[in-house]
C-alpha cells in the first residue's frame, strides 16, 4: 500500500512537495482551507481533506491539533510542513511524533533548540563557529542592554530570543534611544512569541547574508550543498536569492561548508537545514542562526547542484541513508530566484489583494517556475504575499543575470502589482551586477523612481492617449482606426463609458 504523505501547507510549496511525493510513489494529501477553497495546489493532490476551519481563529496551517487529528482520521503516514506556518514549531513536530506520524524534518528537540537563538548560538560556539560580538545570553533589562552596548559600541541590534521575520528586532544607533527600543521590542516579542527575552549584539552596517544548505540523515551522515546569497531583502525578508555567491571564494566555500557540516554533526542533525552567516564588508563572517526547514529559496541550490532537496528530506525521514557524498556535490553554473510577491514596489511594498485576471510565465529549459496561482486565482489578505517564484539557471553569473532579466520581461500579470519590476531594476543595478550589494540595498539605494524607464513611460503615454482618445473622438462621432490588421483599438469605446 502506498504511503500517505500529508502536506501541512499551501500554495507553490504544496505543489512542489506533491511533485516529490509522486516521484517517491506516495499519495499526496492536502488540506482545503476555507480561506482559499479554490486554491491551485488542490488540483495536484491525490486526496483533499476539507479543513472546515472557516469559523476558526486561525487557518488550519497554524493549528497543530486540528492538523494531527485530521491526519489520524485519514491514516496519514508522513507530514511535510513546508516552510513558514508550523514548519519550525517544535510542539507541532512533537505532537506528530507522539501520534506516530513521521514528521519530515529534524527532531522536535533540535527544532526547539535552534529556534531559541541564544541556545543555538551557544551550540555553535561549542562547534567552533565565529559569532558576532554580543551578549552570550538574554540581557535582563534595558539598563543591562545599555551597559553592554556602551561596551561593544554602536550601532547595536536588539533581537528577541524567540523572534523571526523581523519582529521583536530593533537597531539602535545611539545610547539615548536604547531603553525605549528595548522595551518596545521586548513587548512585541512577548506578544508575538510568548517570550520577551532579548539579546544584544554588534550591528554590522553593510552586511551580506549568506547561507549554507546542508542535508543529513539519521545515520550520522551530513553534507553541505554550497551557499546561497540572500542579501537582497526588504523589511528583513528575502526577495531575490542566488547560488553560488560571488563573495565566496572556493577556499571560503570549503571552510564555511566544513564548518556548517561540523556544526550539524555536533548536534546530530538530520533532514534539510540551513546555516545562516552574516558577512561583513571585510569578508569576515559570523554564524547567525540555523533554519530547520526547507527554505523558500531551495530551488537555486537544486539548480546548481542537481540534487532534489525535497526528495531527500522525505527519504531521510523514512530512515534512508544519504548516498550522496561531499565530493559528489559540484556547483554547476549560476542560479537566481526572483520571488513574485503581490506587493507594490512603488508604494513601499504594500500588499496587494484581489483577483489575478491573467498571469503569464516565461518558459524555457533554463527557467523553473514554482507557482501557486493561475488565471482567476484570488490573492487573499490571509496569507503571505508570495504567489510564485521564477528561478533561472545560467552558465555563469553574467549569463544568468541576462537570462533572468529576459525571463522577467516575459512575465506578465493583469490585475495586481508584483515585485517583478523591482527584480528587473535590481538585475540592472551596478551594485547587483558587480555583486557588492548588501542587505541595506533596498533601504539605502533603492527609490521607486528606479522602477521607471523612458520606453515604458512613452508607451504608457500612448496607451493612456488611446483610451482617452477613444472617448474624446467618439463625442465628435469620428472614430479613428489606428489599426494593425484585424485589431481595432476602438472596440474599447463602449467599455470605457462608465
Amino acid at each position, binding site marked *: 500500500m502506498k504511503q500517505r504523505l500529508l502536506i501541512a501547507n499551501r500554495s507553490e510549496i504544496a505543489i512542489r512537495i506533491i511533485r516529490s511525493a509522486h516521484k517517491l510513489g506516495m499519495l499526496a494529501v492536502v488540506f482545503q482551507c476555507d480561506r482559499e477553497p479554490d486554491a491551485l495546489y488542490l488540483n495536484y493532490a491525490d486526496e483533499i481533506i476539507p479543513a472546515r476551519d472557516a469559523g476558526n481563529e486561525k487557518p488550519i496551517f497554524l493549528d497543530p491539533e486540528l492538523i494531527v487529528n485530521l491526519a489520524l482520521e485519514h491514516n496519514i503516514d508522513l507530514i511535510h510542513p513546508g516552510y513558514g506556518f508550523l514548519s519550525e514549531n517544535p510542539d507541532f513536530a512533537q505532537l506528530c511524533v507522539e501520534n506516530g506520524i513521521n514528521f519530515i524534518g529534524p527532531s522536535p528537540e533540535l527544532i526547539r533548540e535552534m529556534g531559541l537563538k541564544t541556545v543555538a548560538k551557544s551550540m555553535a560556539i561549542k562547534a567552533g563557529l565565529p559569532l558576532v560580538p554580543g551578549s552570550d545570553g538574554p540581557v535582563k533589562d534595558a539598563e543591562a542592554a545599555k551597559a553592554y552596548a556602551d561596551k561593544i559600541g554602536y550601532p547595536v541590534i536588539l533581537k528577541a530570543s524567540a523572534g523571526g521575520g523581523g519582529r521583536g528586532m530593533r537597531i539602535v544607533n545611539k545610547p539615548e534611544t536604547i531603553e525605549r527600543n528595548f522595551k518596545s521590542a521586548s513587548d512585541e516579542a512577548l506578544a508575538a512569541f510568548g517570550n520577551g527575552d532579548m539579546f544584544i549584539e554588534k550591528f554590522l552596517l553593510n552586511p551580506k547574508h549568506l547561507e549554507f544548505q546542508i542535508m543529513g540523515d539519521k545515520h550520522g551522515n551530513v553534507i553541505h550543498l554550497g551557499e546561497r546569497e540572500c542579501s537582497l531583502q526588504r523589511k528583513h525578508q528575502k526577495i531575490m536569492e542566488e547560488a553560488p555567491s560571488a563573495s565566496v571564494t572556493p577556499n571560503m566555500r570549503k571552510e564555511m561548508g566544513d564548518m556548517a557540516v561540523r556544526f550539524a554533526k555536533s548536534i546530530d542533525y538530520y533532514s534539510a537545514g540551513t546555516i545562516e552567516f552574516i558577512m561583513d564588508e571585510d569578508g569576515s563572517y559570523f554564524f547567525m542562526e540555523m533554519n530547520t526547514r526547507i527554505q523558500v529559496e531551495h530551488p537555486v541550490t537544486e539548480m546548481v547542484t542537481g540534487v532534489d532537496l525535497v526528495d531527500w528530506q522525505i527519504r531521510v525521514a523514512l530512515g534512508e541513508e544519504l548516498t550522496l557524498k561531499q565530493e559528489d556535490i559540484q556547483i554547476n553554473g549560476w542560479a537566481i530566484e526572483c520571488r513574485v510577491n503581490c506587493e507594490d514596489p512603488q508604494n513601499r511594498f504594500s500588499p496587494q489583494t484581489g483577483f489575478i485576471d491573467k498571469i503569464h510565465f516565461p518558459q524555457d529549459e533554463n527557467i523553473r517556475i514554482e507557482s501557486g496561482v493561475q488565471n482567476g486565482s484570488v490573492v487573499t489578505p490571509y496569507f503571505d504575499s508570495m504567489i510564485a517564484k521564477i528561478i533561472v539557471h545560467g552558465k555563469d553569473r553574467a549569463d544568468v543575470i541576462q537570462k533572468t532579466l529576459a525571463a522577467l520581461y516575459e512575465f506578465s500579470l493583469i490585475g495586481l502589482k508584483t515585485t517583478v519590476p523591482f527584480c528587473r531594476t535590481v538585475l540592472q543595478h551596478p551594485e547587483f551586477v558587480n555583486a557588492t550589494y548588501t542587505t541595506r540595498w533596498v533601504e539605502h539605494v533603492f527609490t521607486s523612481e528606479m522602477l521607471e524607464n523612458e520606453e515604458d513611460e512613452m508607451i504608457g503615454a*500612448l496607451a493612456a492617449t488611446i483610451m482617452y482618445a477613444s472617448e474624446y473622438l467618439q463625442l465628435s462621432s469620428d472614430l479613428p482606426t489606428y489599426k494593425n490588421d484585424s485589431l481595432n483599438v476602438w472596440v474599447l469605446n463602449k467599455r470605457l463609458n462608465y
Partner: protein
Amino acid sequence: MGTTYIYKRDASRLFIALRENGKRYKIYIPKESKPVINGEELDIDFVEQEDFHYTFNWNGKRFHCELVSRDQNKAVIKVNGVEYKFSLESLFSYIRHGMIDKDGSQINENNIVSPMPGKIVDIFLSEGDLVNEGEPILSLEAMKMQNEISANCNGVIRKIRVQQGQSVMKDELLVEISSIDV
C-alpha cells in the same frame, strides 16, 4: 498635398499626455497608420487588446499596458508592472489652457506674413487644421510666378486672414499658427 507629412490635418487626433514629473508627450493617432509621438512616427504594433489591457510591440520588446484607474482626464497606466500617471488633453484644450496660463504657456504663436505683394490664388488648408513644418498653406501669385507659402512650424492653424483672390501687401498678415513644437 504631400503625403510624406506625418500630421494629417485632423487636429482632433493630436493629444498631449503630461506626467507629474513634467514629461510631455505629443501623441498623434492617424486614421490608418502608426502613431506619431513627439513628432516621430514610430513602428509600434498592437499585439493584444482586451478590456482595459493592451500589449504593444516595439523594437522587439513587449509592453503590457493596463488601465488602473481613470478620473476625468487623468489616467493611471501600468506598463510592464509599473504605474505611470498621465493627465490627458486634446490639442484644443491644451492650447486653451496654454493661453490662460501665461507663465506655463508652451504654445507659441507663429504668424506668417506675406513676403511680397501679390494675390492669393489658392488656399490648401482650413482653420483648425494640423499642419506640418514646411507644408504649403496657400499659394501667392506675384510677378506671374506662383509662390507656395508654407508653415514655419508644426502646429494648428488658428486663423487664416486672407481669402482666395485677395490682393495682399508685403508683410501683410496671412496666417496665424499655434505651434506645437516645444
